[in-house]
């Protein structure tokens, strides 16, 4: 296990370094003077010169990168231009929101997608199957921001079941938090639910036709046990792969969804930073998201081993 973590770490480390360099280079690529971008238009010439020396903008790029890396690794992401708040503090309040949103979306995709897919596979070529397949086709093409708007229309305006937007931290009021997070996580998850449903159907159909399932049946194993224990277990690997591969899309969805439902997450922070021409939070938010996605890829690899003991770690 340890060896496997090390190995995928060695593979992912150069990618993580490269992404960090790309995020760092945003500052270099800024058109015009980076000190204006950091201090704002009102800064005096002396202030800008002082910052130029302090930040070492005249130094060679590798040196600048090393210095930036050193600060970043120790958790110093600079300060927000607008609020003067340390970006690290902003991250501390915003990461949990985005994390909860994406985790709930994945949870929903498993809770809704897997049973839906199993049902479709077991009732192959019946109306149930057609309806489920049709829904998953549509779900995959549904733009998430429109899905969010439709959900608000239905659940907040028509039925009045859920509040349309806002955020309460989980530990402050768990019930209200869940109420506020249901629609956003459905919005983020809608295409993943559809995708998981289709993948579950496909891989269940494949697995159910194999010999060992017939053997299990012949032994007199009950239908439920065959489906959930023998078949599903082996059908899970492609499903986990789909979820792992979709993390990037999921995060992209989260960025927009946070705007729809006014959730104070990383995506909102990045978009606000762009409007305010406030680069430090944008860089930090992007870096955290990319590293998060890379870590999830690593985690996906590890799940294979848990699901299938034959895969040697």
């Amino acid at each position, binding site marked *: 296990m340890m060896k496997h973590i090390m190995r995928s770490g060695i593979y992912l480390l*150069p*990618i*993580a370094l*490269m*992404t960090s*360099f*790309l*995020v760092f280079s*945003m500052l270099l*690529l*800024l*058109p015009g003077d980076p000190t204006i971008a950091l201090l704002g238009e009102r800064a005096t010439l002396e202030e800008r010169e002082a910052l130029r020396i302090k930040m070492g903008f005249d130094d060679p790029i590798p040196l600048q990168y090393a210095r930036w890396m050193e600060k970043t690794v120790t958790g110093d992401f600079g300060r927000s231009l607008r609020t003067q708040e340390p970006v690290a503090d902003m991250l501390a309040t915003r990461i949990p929101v985005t994390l909860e949103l994406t985790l709930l979306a994945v949870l929903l995709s498993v809770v809704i997608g897997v049973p839906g897919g199993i049902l479709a596979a077991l009732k192959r070529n019946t109306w149930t199957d057609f309806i489920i397949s049709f829904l998953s086709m549509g779900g995959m*093409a*549904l*733009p998430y*921001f*429109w899905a969010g*708007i*439709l959900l*608000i*229309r239905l659940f907040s*305006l028509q039925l009045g079941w859920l509040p349309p937007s806002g955020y309460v931290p989980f530990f402050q009021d768990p019930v209200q938090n869940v109420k506020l997070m249901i629609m956003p996580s459905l919005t983020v998850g809608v295409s993943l639910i559809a995708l998981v449903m289709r993948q579950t159907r496909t891989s269940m159909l494949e697995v159910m036709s194999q010999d060992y399932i017939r053997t299990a049946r012949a032994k007199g194993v009950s239908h439920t046990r065959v489906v959930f224990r023998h078949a599903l277990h082996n059908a899970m690997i492609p499903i986990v792969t789909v979820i792992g591969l979709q*993390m*990037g*899309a999921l*995060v*992209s969805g989260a*960025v*927009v969804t946070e*705007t*729809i439902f006014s959730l104070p997450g990383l995506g909102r922070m*990045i*978009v606000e*930073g*762009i*409007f305010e*021409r406030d*680069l430090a939070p*944008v860089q930090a938010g*992007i870096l955290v*998201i*990319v590293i998060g*996605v*890379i870590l999830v890829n690593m985690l996906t690899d590890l799940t294979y081993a848990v699901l299938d003991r034959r895969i040697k770690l």
Partner: protein
Amino acid sequence: MSQAITLQREAAERSDNRFVVAARRFSRHRVGMCGLGVILVLVVCATFAPWLTPYDPIEINYEAMLAPPSWLHWMGTDEIGRDLLSRLIYGARVSLQIVFVAIILSLAVGGAIGLVSGYVGGKVDNVIMRVMDGLLAFPLLVLALGVIAVLGPDLMNAIIALAVVNVPGFARLVRGQVLSVRELDFVQAARAVGASDIRIMLKHIWPSVAGNVIVYASLRASSVLITESSLAFLGLGAEPPTPTWGQMLATAMEYWSAWWMSIFPGLAIFFSALAFNFLGDGIRDALDVRLGD
């Protein structure tokens, strides 16, 4: 001389045949034809927008604010009385332009990077591909936001961002193809005859990888459209009053009672994205290409 001409004509007929075969196969692909149909309708709407639209898409009409769909305004009007149908048609113009320009840009840049990287090989290839891997690790929209954060939010920069986001995919695809073609006999032959590197890349290698690139480009279209609408929805696309579907949806969130404002632009994005997907599937099956990812 006459023999050369005959040979040329034969070659032309053969390539023509390949195209005809693909077109015939595509015409039997029902889903693909559906997609093509919808896209054609969109293209016609976008091209002839000034003649098709019943109203001026940015003309304010205080007499008809938030009017529901009627014979006068088929899809209703928005908060300042602009005709929604007209805005949707003009929105198609904006969206399609962005999608096509962004894809062609990323195809040109990504294709060139992939060609050079695969053809030159060695250290150059290594460095370029590490950078592309790094870019591929970014979620699409997040990378687009990064580009816009650097360049500033406006329409031109949104197009650049959408292009940049798709460059690594094209580069990696083309590079992989080039690697497999580079050592084939016809390339070696061209080199032996003394063709220049650029000529070999463009005249000999490119035609044999172009099919896959076209398929990949068509499969990317719906994702580019969704990302474009997302940016517009966030307020990072074309500036108002230029109508875009994404920004129309964002406005609709301030006027919940006007259901038509949030339904029609959403349907437009949904069906266009679906159509691009179908079209891409059709082209892929017609050219009989299997893409790695």
